[in-house]
């Protein structure tokens, strides 16, 4: 990176907040996405919106791409560096500035780790529900930028549902304040919604006003086992049809159960095809009723067993074990590629069946787990990046799975974002008009294209056409070679 620019950055931030050494850059060349790897030009750690404003003015003037990153747990390449870019890392902006119990809000900086917010508000009798699998590492800034989901999405929604106001530094250095602490606010466009899920392509989030809800007084966690995946899927449909909204309905398939048990050793049953983790929370009486109903429904739909966690510790052990599913799958294969195709809930059984058939068709191994209650699946390919032939088959299988999900009225990504890994498929969901609106917005807010360029979609280039008909698709996994 240009010496003058670095000198400017060092003057602005101090020498220990600018990393340029190759060894440091190598440690920031990846995020949580498999295979993808790209060296940045430098890594910087600002600690205020004012500093970020200065940085963006400089970057704009010199046309240097800026990739914002929190803890780097993205699974779609959202926080992966663009070659030679500035990685703007927010982890030093990690203050919880205020918890306002009277209005049930919290004002935070983007580098606060997700789980820390919930811990901090508990003493006020409040609750921050979004709990992505990586909640003990991921940052709130990253969660907002990716509109992250989690295990409780079914009942409590996703990050978007908790963002009341944002402070955002725009690409040319202006600082935008959008949203208020009011429950009702219809003054102008809801600009904050534009930045939620924008993956760092429209602005850099520097403050977030989070909505909080009362902490549920009771919670009950249950584990049901099934001899077929179909039975588990039918149980979920029946629970939802019976007007119960549990806070969590997670499933693991056989492969995933084995991997998780090998790591966590909490005594998961190994001789079952599917496992359903069910949780309900709220008023103690309602929780009792709902738990009993869910227990009955599971048994009516062929559950081999239903066990109730005897205390909070056991419940926590179960949900913590579920959170390790993705990483635990890495035990059985050198490379694990995780996707999050999502379908309307009544099409779940069909989608799961299709995933299994696709795996057989392309002779690839898949472990599937995910949020059955909200239709968000995590088919995970167990492969080896060095086996190019197999990787090609994995790509083909993915393509079919994405197309099927969209055909069923679903989407290519439920919570991980598009990033680099899925941008080729974005048009399947947006259509040409939607994609064009995306491009116009990007053009308006980031005219020089410095913010996380090349993520979600390409600004220029032809409109993508269908992926079929023998069109040469370079593939999600070949991007690193470009």
């Amino acid at each position: 990176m240009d010496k003058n620019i670095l000198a400017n950055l060092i003057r602005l931030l101090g020498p220990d907040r600018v990393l340029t050494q190759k060894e440091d850059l190598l440690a920031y060349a990846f995020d949580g996405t498999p295979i993808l790897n790209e060296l940045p030009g430098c890594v910087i750690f600002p600690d205020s919106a004012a500093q970020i404003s200065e940085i963006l003015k400089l970057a704009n003037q010199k046309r240097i791409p800026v990739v914002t990153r929190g803890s780097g747990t993205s699974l779609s390449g959202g926080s992966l560096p663009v070659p030679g870019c500035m990685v703007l890392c927010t982890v030093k902006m990690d203050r919880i500035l205020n918890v306002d119990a009277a209005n049930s809000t919290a004002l935070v900086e983007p580098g606060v780790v997700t789980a820390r917010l919930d811990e901090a508000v508990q003493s006020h009798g409040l609750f921050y529900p979004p709990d992505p699998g990586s909640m003990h590492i991921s940052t709130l800034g990253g969660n907002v930028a990716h509109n992250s989901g989690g295990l409780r999405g079914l009942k409590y929604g996703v990050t978007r549902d908790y963002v009341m106001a944002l402070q955002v530094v725009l690409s040319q250095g202006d600082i935008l304040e959008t949203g208020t602490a009011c429950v009702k606010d219809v003054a102008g466009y809801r600009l904050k919604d534009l930045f939620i899920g924008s993956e760092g392509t429209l602005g850099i989030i520097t403050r977030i006003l989070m909505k909080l809800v009362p902490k549920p007084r009771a919670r009950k966690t249950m584990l049901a086992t099934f001899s077929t995946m179909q039975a588990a899927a039918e149980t979920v449909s029946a629970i939802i049809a019976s007007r119960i909204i549990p806070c969590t309905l997670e499933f693991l398939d056989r492969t995933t159960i084995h991997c998780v048990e090998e790591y966590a050793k909490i005594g998961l049953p190994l001789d079952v095809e599917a496992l359903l983790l069910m949780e309900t929370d709220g008023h103690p009486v309602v929780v009792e009723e709902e738990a009993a109903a869910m227990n009955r429904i599971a048994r009516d739909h062929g559950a081999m067993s239903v066990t109730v966690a005897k205390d909070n510790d056991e419940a926590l052990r179960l949900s913590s074990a579920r959170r390790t599913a993705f990483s635990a799958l890495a035990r059985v294969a050198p490379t694990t590629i995780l996707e999050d195709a999502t379908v309307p809930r009544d099409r779940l059984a069909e989608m799961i069946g299709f995933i299994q058939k696709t795996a057989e068709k392309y002779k690839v191994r898949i472990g599937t787990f995910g949020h059955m209650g909200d239709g968000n699946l995590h088919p995970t390919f167990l492969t080896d990046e060095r086996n190019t032939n197999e990787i090609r088959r994995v790509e083909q299988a993915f393509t079919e799975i994405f197309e099927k999900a969209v055909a069923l009225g679903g989407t290519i990504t439920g919570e991980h974002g598009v990033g680099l890994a899925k941008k080729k498929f974005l048009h399947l969901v947006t259509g040409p008009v939607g994609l064009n609106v995306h491009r116009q917005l990007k053009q308006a807010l980031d005219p020089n294209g410095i913010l996380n360029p090349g993520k979600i979609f390409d600004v220029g280039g032809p409109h993508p056409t269908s992926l079929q008909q023998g069109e040469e698709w370079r593939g999600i996994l070949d991007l690193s070679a470009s």
Partner: protein
Amino acid sequence: MNFLKDLDYSVVQQCMHCGLCLPTCPTYEATRRETSSPRGRIALMRAVADGKIDATPAFAGEMYFCLGCLACETACPAGVDYTHLFEMARAEAERVGTLATPKRTWIRKILFQWLFMSRRRLRFAGRLLWFYQKLGLQTLIRKSGLLRLVPKQLHELESLTPTIANHFTPFGHQPETRNPEPETCRRRVGILAGCVQDLAFPDVNRDTIYVLEQNGCQVVVPVQQQCCGSLHAHNGEWETAKILARKNLDAFDVDTLDAIIANAAGCGSHMRHYDRLLADDPNYAERARIWSKKVRDISEYLVEIGFRKPSDGKSGPDSLRSKIRLTYHEACHLVHGQKISKQPRIILGSLPRYEMVELPEATWCCGSAGIYNITQPEMAAQLQERKIRHIISIGASLVATANPGCIIQIVSGLRCQGLQVRVAHPVTLLAEAYRPE
């Protein structure tokens, strides 16, 4: 050769950089830099294995900034073998000699290739230190302020020197014929006396022998045994670590022993890997395999054989006294290195005179980490201070921990703050509970 290139690639590839290790890494927490995180370090190791970089000074510096506490290994659902990666990375740094200065090379030679290669030399050095302490020189020098004249590092090192014991471990200890009765002696075990343990805490070794005998074990302490070599393996001295492992395999008759007992977490953790260390040695591979299967930490073994609970001494005067607040600090190489966490608590829970209180962040490194408190005093001091803060917060007057390095580190931290808190090995507390019976 290149230690990282020669390593089976699947070991580096096992890390899928999900980041679940980040919150458990003390150096990442302190710096918030990925370079100082487990997945960042593995990325650097992989870059060396791929030939993207050599073992540069920055690479080596990072590998030595790592505590080797292995908390990341516990956190890792993917099962990354960080122990092996970390040892190979340091070995590679030393092979290239990227940090070498005449002074550093000289110190390493004296320490790893001379002093710690022979128990006799170690004991001789220990004796010298003992004279220094016994003759009152230490007190005199500490009080005189003369230490302020020597380099800061030496000054800090001085404050960490353990008090050398009057009598070292009873080597050549042979099973007693009287007690326990031969027919009740169903188990025969060997004890590794260790290096620091032998010089500074031989009582822990005596207590280990006593407790095992009280539980019907025949105990042998082979005379020919040496330092286990963990110090060497963790500091890039891979070949000397092999020499020491072979000497110990020669000293212990593994076939006739039911278990090889370690009471120092670091030793036990390393000795479990003798099989890997000597896998390519046709003369030792098979015995090393048996050895690794038989290594047990003392707490683990006592629980395994169903140790006798001490009587609660209701008739004695102790029952009248209020109970002493006891807490437990988990040595990294016990909890992370050997996944032993419940067993020491079972033993401590069986003691009649104590009230067990959980220590916040019990599994967070105390900063001792082998010789880390000497090589990285700043980070080590931060961790020490944090540990002491937690001990104070729960008002414990006794801290149990199962590693000599941790004992020294915590004692030194407590002394700095002028606190009257005792630090002891769990087996010592069990021995104390048996004795008045």
